[in-house]
């Protein structure tokens, strides 16, 4: 063994390290299997005579690029809302004007710079009356600047990050539950299920989204009097959680909360099960609501996860009455079956979010009885309604205007049906629940 080969080996190891680092940073491929983007057909202008008006809704869709799948679904949902309204004859205002809607949209290529160019175009050349956000927090942040600049009210969907609503904007309204509240429902549920439980371990993927969620959950849990016995991140590439799980076991938590994305979350759940960790509740981000989570078999049983929306959620007029809220639009069942018959698959929450964004705008226009942006904005500020997507209400404070404060994450849990198959049940909030939570998990 000579010096030269040692040096070479070191060099190679360093190079391999670099390669591995680069590979780690490469974007994951989209989850495939989706039909390609369909260009949204422009809403047919209803040729109603006298007082008919066409309202232009502008948005971009990621027909190409990494957000293609989710964005497609979101656009499909939005388009479905528009078709529903237009097919029903549009909205009739107090003065007899009949409003119909027309979509103007472009492909943003999942690219921020394109988003800014295109939203500027939508606001100036296409004279969009209202805007809907693109998919994802990043693209929405770029679009929000333009909406604000041109004073066009924008409903955002598919964008959970809190940051966009803390910039002092006044025209941007968030339909999704913000990231900071992804796990707070899980803490609330634990409080309701077991007042004796006091210890929570929060373990999360070291990524921007999960870290933000975990930090907010920690603050919330501590505020509620919980002892956060472990608060620690793990590398996004982690495949072997055994050492980590030993550490969790040593902290003896009642509940484990955290996770990150699908891959790490499902591996973590599998290894928790293999090690037979004795906890009463496990709540993970992103992974559990995915249908493929059921492939874990027994390891999936009892695992809970927050989701923006689920087809099974029972939001309905009755639920709204019980909660003392105004109800608007189709029920969750109606939306789901309409979507299924149109698309041949169950709607994901991305699609539901697209429909919900349109519905919120419609509600605001009806409340304002006008399409004047200032009046619609005022109506959005005052909105407090339950729709099939859940409760919707916006923050009107100066520091976080437009932030969603009504919508709660629903929590799903994998349970077994009578024939022993794993099924996803909505267990929280009680207004949308389809089954009682299993607690403690077996």
């Amino acid at each position: 063994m000579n010096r030269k080969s040692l040096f070479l080996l070191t060099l190679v190891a360093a190079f391999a390290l670099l390669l591995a680092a680069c590979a780690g940073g490469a974007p994951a491929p989209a989850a495939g299997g989706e039909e390609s983007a369909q260009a949204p057909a422009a809403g047919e202008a209803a040729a109603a005579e006298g007082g008919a008006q066409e309202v232009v809704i502008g948005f971009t869709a990621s027909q190409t690029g990494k957000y293609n799948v989710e964005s497609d679904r979101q656009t499909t949902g939005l388009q479905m809302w528009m078709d529903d309204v237009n097919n029903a004859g549009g909205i009739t205002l107090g003065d007899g004007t009949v409003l119909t809607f027309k979509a103007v949209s472009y492909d943003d290529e999942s690219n921020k710079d394109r988003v800014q160019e295109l939203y500027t175009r939508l606001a100036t050349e296409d004279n969009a009356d209202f805007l809907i956000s693109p998919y994802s927090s990043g693209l929405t942040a770029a679009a929000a600047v333009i909406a604000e600049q041109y004073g066009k009210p924008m409903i955002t969907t598919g964008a959970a990050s809190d940051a966009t609503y803390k910039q002092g904007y006044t025209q941007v309204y968030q339909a999704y539950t913000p990231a900071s509240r992804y796990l707070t429902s899980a803490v609330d549920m634990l409080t309701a299920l077991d007042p004796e439980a006091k210890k929570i371990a929060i373990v999360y993927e070291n990524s921007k989204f999960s870290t933000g969620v975990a930090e907010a959950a920690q603050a919330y849990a501590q505020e509620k009097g919980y002892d956060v016995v472990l608060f620690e991140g793990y590398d996004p590439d982690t495949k072997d959680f055994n050492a980590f799980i030993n550490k969790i076991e040593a902290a003896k938590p009642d509940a484990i909360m955290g996770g990150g994305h699908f891959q790490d979350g499902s591996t973590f759940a599998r290894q928790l099960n293999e090690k037979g960790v004795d906890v009463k509740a496990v709540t993970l981000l992103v992974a559990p609501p995915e249908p493929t989570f059921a492939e874990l078999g027994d390891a999936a049983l009892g695992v809970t996860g927050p989701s923006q929306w689920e087809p099974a959620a029972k939001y309905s007029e009755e639920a709204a009455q019980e909660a003392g809220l105004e109800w608007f639009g189709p029920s969750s069942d109606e939306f789901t079956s309409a979507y299924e018959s149109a698309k041949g698959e169950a709607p994901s929450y991305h699609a539901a979010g697209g429909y919900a964004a349109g519905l919120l705008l419609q509600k605001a226009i009806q409340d304002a009885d006008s399409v004047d942006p200032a009046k619609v904005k005022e109506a959005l500020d005052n909105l407090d309604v339950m729709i099939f997507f859940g409760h919707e209400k916006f923050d009107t404070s100066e520091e976080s205007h437009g932030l969603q404060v009504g919508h709660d994450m629903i929590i799903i849990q994998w349970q077994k049906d009578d024939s022993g198959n794993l099924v996803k049940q909505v267990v929280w909030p009680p207004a949308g629940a389809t089954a009682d939570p299993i607690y403690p998990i077996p």
Partner: protein
Amino acid sequence: MGEVLITSALDGLLIGVIYGLAAMGLTLIFGVMDVINLAHGPLIAVGMFGVYLLFTFLGINPFVALLIMAVIGLLLGFFIYFVAVNRVIDAPPLSSLLSTFSVNMMIIGVGTALLTTSSYNVEYSLGSFEFGFFRVPGARLMAALAALVVTGLLYLFMYRTRPGKYIRAVADNRASAELMGIPSTRILALAFGIGVMLAVVAGGLIATILPINILAGGSFELKSFVIVVLGGLGNPLGALFGGLILGLIEGLVPVVMKTTWVPVIEYALFVLILLVRPQGLMGAKK
């Protein structure tokens, strides 16, 4: 605290044996022919997917599939040796680095095209065993045992059989070995084949316990470099030893500090060993 330390240490040792096996292929090839096989990681991935495909589509028990993959690995090793290594074996080291790196890129390219970079799981469970407070998944225990058996067989082969002795002779001094009538090219091919076989087998074992993807071999290749330096370059038994140390670090460090410190400590150790004991803890090949 005591229980956690023991559990974590045992968990670490179990995975460490497999790390050691993965590194053994790398160190064997380096020890015999001074070639750093940059296709090591992708070859580990070949083992992972071989076992995955045989198990998932043909229903073959993963440990039987491992035997099939061992044979395939050996043949693949011969093939790679004659196509990519033999011609550059006497050229400056950069040539063999580049040629094995090309093999790396080819395997990754084909694998990504066929399998994407998504993760897969070998849905195989052996339940779990409990030893007092220590609970271990059966598949992990089996994988560790299998790795020990393979290591034992490698030693029997190297020290008790004629081809094994030839390999050691060629590693020691190729020119003299040739003068003694040892067909060095064939022996080099055999050594390379065995090195690849070890990588493939390690990959197959990993597939039984952890999720896999086509790039997953990379992190084991990286660990292998650290292990090889820890244990001593070109010393297969040292690799096992280095693997156990790495496993212990991964098991025990998280007990006392944040998990994210594990790679920092591993690579700090790597640099430290290179500085103060470049021949490795167990001594390098002379």
